[in-house]
């Protein structure tokens, strides 16, 4: 709530209404209380109100539930991250209250369930405390003994009141969510909501109203990164895939399993990740780019087959939703530690493409880009997403599906002759020919993992091995030359350049804004094409004294993270250093700024 500070409560009379351009609301409770649902309602409401929104949540790794938070940041202007400090903390339990009061900004409001929370006197002077017996009043409103059911919706009513939210739109959203045949379920939900909404918050605090969003007439869709990626693959024309369940990749697999049949396609659950990638490559070999994916250990299992697809030059899309590693690691936490395996995993020289989407919207478009690169260059493409982007909800401009959706059915038109690995092909780029295609000269191709001649037949020729390695490399160099140079956020020359990739784009940009606001000389770039890298980076780096690569992975044996290592190898430039961490949490804006300050001994200001 940058515009309005939460000043001392108006004494008596009607509470003051402040107009705000954004708000950060943190909901803390247990995962089984439906706190994700409150956040989801708020996010969708923002999307329908043409506001920007970003959410962030933590889920307990245990199956039976446990402490969990859902943070929503809603803004009438641009929202880059889910925010460092909350304006409002909604706390359901004592542990939620005590565990999250620190994430509330000084002067913020803590709205707590007074049936469960005993407020601490020492915190009363720093935060406005508003106690509402949420549990009890929910039971009063909807009756019954199911006292834990519905209190999330009651709390949503309180939040709606506090922020003067659009009630008809929220009622509609609630109606869309509770679609059970039993009308009493929806009626109960609406009763709880209205009870919360009409509960008097008293005169202790002011209430808020969002200023009108500047973005007029842009319909938005609201979804998380995994949904955006799944739908992106469908828009790209993917109709077949295979996978094995693992968090947080499973959502995409479940979405494709559910959705693809509507388009005449299917997604197969396999016995393991090796079978999954093999089946997907088989599908791709059949003539239409197919998809597989995984997280963590599942990615390790796929590497032998991935190398085959590189060698045999079969297009494929592999989704990697990164989580904390190595091994089973931190299944429900975020990390960006799969960059190395994505770019280099496997034996031998096996160049492949790696694209890392930067936000939820980008998950949609990256999926389409991945499919098209895979087809054009006959190469596997890895979509390197992560747990944070996969589970956070954002609103983005609705894509024009009629123009975006593509048909990538195989072309089975007979050809006169075909060399699958034609060495005379310009830039090494050859296309896979689907089985079922008649070849008039009667010479048919073999797709193979053995080093081969131009028809795919095995060879031990040292010359052919060098030539084929060069072919597989050259086509990616050709792709690299066609990639756009990343835009610089901030001036093109200065003291410090922050370099990011993947889900950290928002916090990094916000860190730049914050540092520049206090006079520091900081800019940033965000790299989407991880392998091959886009052209022009060296020029960009030349404009800065320090290049700091911000990533959620370990600093490594030599002191910089995984992308940092690649950039060092590429440019041999000692000014490239890293800002890394592995606490399993997304970067806070404050953290980036502080670490950058600590990293540059002379300070961030231009020398």
């Amino acid at each position, binding site marked *: 709530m940058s515009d309005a500070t939460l000043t001392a409560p108006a004494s008596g009379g009607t509470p003051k209404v402040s107009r705000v351009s954004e708000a950060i609301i943190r909901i803390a409770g247990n995962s089984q209380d439906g706190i994700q649902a409150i956040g989801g309602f708020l996010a969708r409401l923002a999307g329908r109100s043409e506001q920007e929104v970003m959410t962030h949540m933590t889920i307990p790794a245990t199956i039976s539930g446990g402490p969990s938070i859902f943070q929503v940041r809603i803004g009438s202007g641009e929202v880059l991250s889910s925010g460092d400090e909350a304006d409002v903390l909604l706390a359901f339990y004592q542990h939620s209250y005590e565990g999250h009061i620190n994430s509330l900004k000084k002067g913020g409001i803590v709205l707590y369930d007074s049936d469960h929370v005993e407020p601490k006197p020492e915190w009363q002077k720093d935060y406005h405390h508003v106690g509402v017996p949420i549990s009890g009043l929910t039971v009063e409103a909807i009756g019954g003994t199911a006292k834990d059911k519905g209190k999330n919706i009651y709390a949503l009513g309180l939040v709606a009141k506090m922020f003067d939210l659009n009630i008809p739109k929220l009622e509609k959203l609630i109606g869309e969510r509770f679609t059970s045949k039993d009308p009493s379920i929806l009626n109960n939900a609406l009763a709880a909501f209205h009870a919360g909404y009409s509960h008097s918050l008293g005169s202790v605090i002011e209430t808020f109203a969002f200023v009108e969003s500047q973005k007029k007439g842009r319909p938005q869709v609201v979804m998380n990164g995994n949904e955006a990626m799944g*739908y992106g693959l469908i828009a790209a024309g993917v109709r077949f895939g295979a996978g094995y369940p693992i968090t947080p990749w499973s959502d995409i697999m479940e979405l494709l399993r559910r959705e693809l049949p*509507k*388009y005449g*396609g299917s997604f197969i659950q396999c016995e393991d990740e090796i079978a999954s990638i093999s089946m997907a490559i088989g599908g791709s070999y059949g003539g239409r780019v197919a998809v597989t994916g995984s997280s963590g250990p599942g990615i390790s299992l796929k590497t032998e087959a991935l190398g085959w697809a590189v060698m045999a030059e079969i297009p494929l899309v592999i989704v990697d939703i990164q989580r904390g590693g190595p091994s089973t690691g931190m299944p429900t936490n975020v990390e960006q530690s799969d960059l190395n395996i994505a770019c280099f995993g496997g034996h031998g020289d096996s160049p492949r493409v790696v694209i890392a989407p930067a936000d939820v919207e980008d998950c949609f478009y990256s999926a389409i880009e991945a499919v098209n690169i895979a087809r054009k260059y006959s190469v596997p493409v890895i979509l390197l997403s992560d747990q944070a982007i996969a589970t956070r909800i954002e609103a983005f401009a609705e894509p024009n599906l009629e123009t975006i*959706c593509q048909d990538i059915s195989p072309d*089975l038109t007979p050809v006169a002759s075909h060399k699958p690995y034609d060495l005379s092909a310009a830039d090494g780029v050859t296309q896979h020919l689907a089985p079922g295609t008649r070849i008039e000269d009667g010479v048919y191709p073999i797709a193979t993992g053995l080093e081969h001649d131009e028809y795919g037949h095995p060879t031990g020729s040292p010359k052919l091995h060098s030539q084929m390695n060069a072919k597989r490399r050259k086509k990616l160099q050709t792709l690299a030359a066609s990639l756009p140079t990343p835009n610089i956020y901030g001036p093109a020359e200065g003291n410090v350049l922050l370099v990011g990739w993947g889900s950290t784009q928002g916090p990094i940009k916000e860190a730049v804004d914050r540092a520049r606001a206090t006079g520091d000389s900081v800019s940033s770039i965000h790299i989407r094409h991880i392998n091959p890298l886009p052209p022009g980076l060296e020029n960009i780096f030349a404009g800065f004294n320090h290049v700091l690569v911000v990533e959620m992975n370990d600093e490594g044996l030599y002191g910089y993270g995984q992308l940092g290592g690649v950039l060092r190898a590429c440019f041999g430039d000692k000014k490239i250093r890293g800002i890394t961490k592995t606490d399993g949490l997304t970067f806070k804006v404050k953290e980036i700024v502080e670490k950058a300050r600590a990293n540059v001994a002379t300070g961030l200001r231009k020398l």
Partner: protein
Amino acid sequence: MSSSLTDIPVRGGNITAVPANSPLERKGLTKKEIAADHPTWCPGCGDFSVLALYFKLIEKRKLWHEKITTVAGIGCSSRFPYFVQAHGVHYIHGRALPFASGISLSRPDLHLFVFGGDGDAFSIGGNHFTHTARKNIKMTYVVMDNWVYGLTKKQTSPTSPLGFKSKTDIGGATDQPINPMKQAIAAGATFVARTTHSNPNHVLQMMEAAMDHDGFSFIECLSECVEFYEGAFDASNPRKGGVFNTVPADHDVTDELAAYKLSGEAFPGKFGIFYKATRATKNANEAKVVAAAREKTASLKDWEILQKSFDRLK
């Protein structure tokens, strides 16, 4: 082509544009047309005869060049696709079945044959064998069982008999060997047959029956490795003083227990179809899921289907 392939509702984009395949329209391919590289196998290797009979099958059943897809893993036997002049895949060790499944489930218009060795099938690929069988994915799988690792030069294989002296068991193998027939029946394969390279007519018979089966059809074909396990199958070869006994005429191929019993007979045992069942294929089950979903979407363009999903995400 087997009728079952055309029975599978074709789905997805212009795969439907593939013309219905009539075997009568063209004459069968000659051996010259279907043979590619000269096989690199050792002279006398049993795999030669399996290849020759595959050619015969293609010729006899008038399969179209471009519609044959041959897939293999890694091993001597798995070199197979290089020797066949048709679309082919030489994949990685042990994973030919899931690869072929990807083709089978997305390209119902192709004849799909998978060839491989005993190590490929029952050691590194053991789990895939089980799951492809239980899912009953339409394809024919011929395991050229030589009871040894040929390509890597004489290590113990999962089908090596007890006492077999190999480079990894110099004192003789001690691990209980896998019985491929039992394995296939227990896993839920719907066509399970046994043959041997030394009886060409029988091999062809089994291949034809397997190809005509709508489902996962498995053939264990004994195929002698003359280099590392010479004489392994002499007891099944009348020309070497052995006996070749076919499955008794009164054997009920739908009787799982009887099939299991047949599988347990001491070598050389019986040859022929041990087990054959009718069970919905994965291909058909998936087609059903698609047909149910398409009832609501068939009249829409793809982007309109996606638009409906997006409309719910507002």
